[in-house]
């Protein structure tokens, strides 16, 4: 069953073809990884899916609905959230505040009600905190709950960004290099979380990652990109042994 479907996607920046006729589909509750050398166009795919870039050609379907032109904030409401390669947290707020901002799509109170802060707003604030607390437990962030992001080390920030995305209770999670800059133990931890996210929370995960040990460990299927083109697709093992992939990384003899 197709859940997310990317069809003939092309993105041009002037003369540069960042993506060239890329198609793939992701099934529900799958972990799908995108690999490829630097500049292959991996993050570009995410940026098109979340509408920060406009594709010059092609379409994206989510649950059979065409979402190619949907606004970024509308995508979050559909259940698609993402993390960023270069951590985009709200630096001057605490961890808890960041997670509560992650709950944005679950707020339905008009601004004037929020001014008065009546009982319904108060109760939903409590509910948001309960939800955020679950994610804090899940990712073991309790120790940092009230710390400002600006004072946290890199590894914890990565974790907070994942937590913030989970607070939105998405059905599709886009992870842009969740293990970059982490040490081997932390990377292994990320692998366990991704498994839990898929099995316990039932979230479909699309992940961009360079660390092949992580990719092999968690992915059902892998897509390899090079210079904007799909060069291989299949299980981690198949892709790793593909001749085109090997030559894309190491150069051909």
């Amino acid at each position, binding site marked *: 069953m197709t859940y997310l479907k990317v069809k003939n996607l092309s993105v041009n920046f002037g003369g540069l073809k960042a993506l060239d006729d890329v198609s793939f589909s992701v099934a529900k509750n799958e972990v799908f990884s995108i690999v490829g050398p630097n500049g292959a166009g991996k993050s570009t795919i995410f940026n098109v899916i979340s509408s920060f870039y406009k594709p010059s050609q092609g379409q994206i379907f989510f649950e059979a609905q065409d979402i190619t032109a949907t606004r970024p904030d509308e995508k979050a409401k559909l259940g698609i959230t993402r993390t*960023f390669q270069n951590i985009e947290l709200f630096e001057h707020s605490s961890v808890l505040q960041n997670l509560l901002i992650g709950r944005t799509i679950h707020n339905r109170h008009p601004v004037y009600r929020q001014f008065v802060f009546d009982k319904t707003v108060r109760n939903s604030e409590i509910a948001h905190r309960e939800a955020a607390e679950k994610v804090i437990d899940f990712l073991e962030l309790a120790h940092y709950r009230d710390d400002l992001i600006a004072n946290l080390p890199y590894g914890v920030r990565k974790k907070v960004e994942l937590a913030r995305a989970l607070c939105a209770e998405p059905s599709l999670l886009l992870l842009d290099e969740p293990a970059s800059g982490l040490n081997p133990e932390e990377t292994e931890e990320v692998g366990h979380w991704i498994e839990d996210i898929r099995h316990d929370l039932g979230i479909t995960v699309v992940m961009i990652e360079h660390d092949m040990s992580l990719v092999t460990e968690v992915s059902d299927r892998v897509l390899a990109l090079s210079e904007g083109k799909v060069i291989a697709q299949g299980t981690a093992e198949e892709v790793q042994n593909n001749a085109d992939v090997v030559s894309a990384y190491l150069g051909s003899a």
Partner: protein
Amino acid sequence: MRVIFKTSYLQDIRLAKHGGHVFWYTLLLVLALVAPLLVDTYWINEVSRFLIFALAGLGLMIVTGYTGQVSLGHAAFLAVGAYAHTYFISHEMPFVISLLLAAFISGCVGLVVAVPASRMTGLYLAIASLAFAIIIEDMTIHWESVTGGNRGMPVPPPSLFGYEIYSAVEFYYIVLASVFLSTILVLNLLRAPFGRAMLAIRDSEISASSLGISVARTKITAFFISACITGLAGGLMAHYVQYLSPEIFGILLSIQLLLMIVVGGLGTVHGAFFGAFLVGLLESLISISKDYLPGAIGNQPGLEPGLFGLILVLFIIFEPEGVYGRWLKLRNFFENFPFYRRNTFKRQKTYLRTDRLK
């Protein structure tokens, strides 16, 4: 050092986080209420003035301090509020309704700026808001049938339920009530989802929108709220100055408001109040020192704006978190004495950000 043991989520949500807050803010409120018994009329007038400026600063704080959109034209909203309010009460509208309507109109004028401005950021927005302020200033000069043009217009005294208010003390209570209510409303907003959305946009528009925050709509709403509050301050200010003329609401006033919130501490409600207090103090100091300075310096027309600009620059370089930030550091020092570490507030390096997406 105070450690708070949290046992319920409400503790996080409440405005007063612990007993100390309750005690000090109640004391402050009581002091404000009995102030007319403690000091004479001259000082009560000064306090009213301080509160009006703090209210205007609070308005600017919403858009600049919390949403991160620099506005160099907030004096225009003071002007709109002041002129609209004066026009309405001169035409026999009840005081309270007129004041609220003036604030609302100011908010609507804010919308006119905000809709195009929501597509701009940084320097471009600052310049656009400056241009807007100049347009409003020109309008106050040329729309004579409403504003009285360069001649200006007198402001009738406020009248509450048929009772005309002439005394400074009664006016002080009106100002105090307005400031108190506005501050509570703003504090409520800041602990609600919309307040967090503003912070999110200030720190990272891209991740705000990927989390479902409509960036344009939030900016426009913030601008509206900000203009309403500043317009309310404008209406009160009309009664304080008692005679409106266009030169009151010039560019200097806009810069003064910006100076207030930067000096006070961007992104804090305290900052608006601290800033209003310090800038008021600064103004008095300048006017006092003019008597002692040699004429060549003291009579320079650019003395005030020059000093304002200089102080703004110095604060941005040496204490970007303003006086309130400095106060927090000082408090931290004493709470943790002798274990305070010099680097507690040192900004760690910010990790690379995704600027390419803009």
